[in-house]
């Protein structure tokens, strides 16, 4: 199936500015709580910008519109990043930003479908998203619905056996309406992913599982956009995966240089500093 023919949301705001806005909103949410998975949010911002402002079709005023492309956040703790892009896309009202992680907020620390418009699934128990995506892609085909299912997962989730059950299943059922996005920041709870349970060589592994695979720099917007286009243009009846090599804390150099961990510690006085540094790099 050629997915490139579907029209996508466009505007005259550059993807660079979208990505910058996503980073800024994520930092502001992090500041509310004094913590958060900010390293991941800054790292994945470019991929999210390309997803929501280049690839996906959706209606901000109707997040459950039947024709929408489904975007599944398998990695629940990346919620801070998804809230940022959902606000940027107009799906979540921006004035809720300061409620992030608070009691009675619609934006809990880990993403849950029943809390937040635009959050398709409850992630967080890692290794779940791709299997659910397989079922949704099957369901869309049954309905002759041309929407695409995107599943954003982390490199750590590649250690879960369920991911590979789902990968085999997606290929077996010829799910050409399924695109998996892997954030490869080589970082998980106890250290570097490649040192915890190495999943390399990744494109070869996915190809061996029957997928069309690409690997690009996830912080190079042009490369990211090209990878989305290429994934959607594949003619073969197979699912597609894009592995994005990303840099944790991208866009805030003093955090990028910090000893990077799964949960980046940002001191109370550093949030303003981070926002100021980001401001200096604001795209024209």
């Amino acid at each position: 199936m050629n997915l490139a023919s579907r029209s996508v949301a466009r505007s005259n705001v550059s993807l660079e500015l979208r990505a910058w806005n996503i980073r800024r909103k994520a930092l502001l949410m992090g500041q509310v709580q004094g913590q958060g998975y900010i390293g991941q949010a800054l790292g994945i911002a470019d991929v999210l910008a390309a997803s929501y402002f280049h690839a996906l079709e959706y209606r901000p005023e109707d997040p459950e519109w039947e024709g929408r492309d489904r975007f599944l956040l398998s990695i629940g703790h990346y919620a801070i990043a998804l809230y940022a892009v959902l606000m940027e896309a107009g799906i979540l009202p921006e004035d809720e930003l300061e409620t992030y992680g608070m009691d009675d907020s619609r934006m809990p620390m880990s993403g849950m479908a029943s809390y937040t418009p635009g959050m398709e699934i409850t992630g967080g128990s890692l290794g779940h998203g791709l299997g659910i995506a397989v079922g949704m892609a099957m369901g869309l085909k049954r309905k002759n619905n041309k929407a695409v299912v995107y599943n954003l997962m982390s490199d750590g989730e590649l250690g879960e056996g369920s991911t590979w059950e789902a990968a085999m299943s997606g290929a077996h059922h010829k799910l050409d309406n399924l695109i998996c996005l892997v954030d490869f920041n080589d970082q998980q709870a106890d250290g570097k992913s490649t040192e915890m349970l190495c999943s390399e060589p990744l494109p070869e592994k996915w190809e061996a599982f029957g997928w069309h695979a690409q690997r690009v720099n996830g912080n190079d917007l042009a490369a990211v956009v090209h990878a989305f286009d290429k994934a959607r243009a594949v003619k073969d009846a197979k699912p597609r995966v894009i592995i994005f090599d990303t840099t944790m804390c991208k866009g805030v150099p003093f955090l990028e240089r910090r000893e990077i961990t799964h949960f980046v510690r940002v001191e109370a006085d550093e949030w303003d500093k981070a926002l100021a540094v980001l401001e200096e790099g604001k795209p024209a």
Partner: protein
Amino acid sequence: MTLASMARKYEVRKLPEGERQATSAMIASLAAEGYDTIAAPFGHALVEAARKDERILGLTADLGKYTDMHIFSQAMPDRFYQMGMAEQVLMSAAAGLAREGFLPFATTYAVFASRRAYDFIAMAIAEENLPVKIVCALPGLTTGYGPSHQATEDLAIFRGLPNMTLIDPCDADDIVGMVPQMIAHEGPVYARLLRGRVPSVLRKHKPDYRFQLGKAQMIREGNDVLVISTGLMTMRALDAAVQLAADKIDVAVLHCPTIKPLDLETIAAEAAKGGRLVVTAENHTVMGGLGEAVAAGLLSRGIAPRFRMIGLPDQFLEAGALPTLHEMYGISVGKVAEQIKGWL
């Protein structure tokens, strides 16, 4: 190595002369003497329901033939997904299909659903309250293959899961009756399954019996003992009651095929009718199943009759022929009758 858990290592089991039987094949039906049987009641009921409801789909993890799903896959191949030996994606994909508006029935063995796929049932299905219907063969002690296949703790596992409805059918009448009610119920359901040639028991004892989701029903009245039973053990209790009647022991049997939500209103009303010994009976470990649920329900209502539980012990059970094992673990008709007699 002399770990206590391996104390039985390599020992030949000693049985009285003349009692040795061969372990039956996995596909053997669970037959009971003196009852008519119905072939593959679940598969046929599902096909009938699916003819009326286009949302219904069938999925299995390489156990279509062993869960009677093959009846559905043959009748409606376009609405069936063979997911392969991959229970985690079986449950996740069922959740995804439910998200897209379908009503998936997913089948496997009870051990694999409850042990291997639990997290996926919990988070992808139950937490989202999605209408996925999980139907699992080999509940409790219905195979002689040993602990790898004996789901002796599945009900305990799923009882703790919010949003789940649990059904432990007794016979073909229950299975045929439960399918449309599982569909009418909006949330997720876990049902135990008897497959192959399944006896029709309940209607023989109570001709107007009809399965009702969430309801316990008196199948047989009696003044000395009240057996509160579920699943296969209602069959055993009814047969034991007939035996005990010959000894002038009058046994009532209250059948509770819905384990969650449990019909405590009916159970409490019956248990409060004074003087009867109350006995629970389940094809499941006594840890966390029907017995403990009934006990907690009665106590919290201030009802404290004489109370005993029949169920499987808190052990990994042995391999062997089912009749041998049912005797060994006290869930044969004879052992049920014997235990009740001993408690009076």
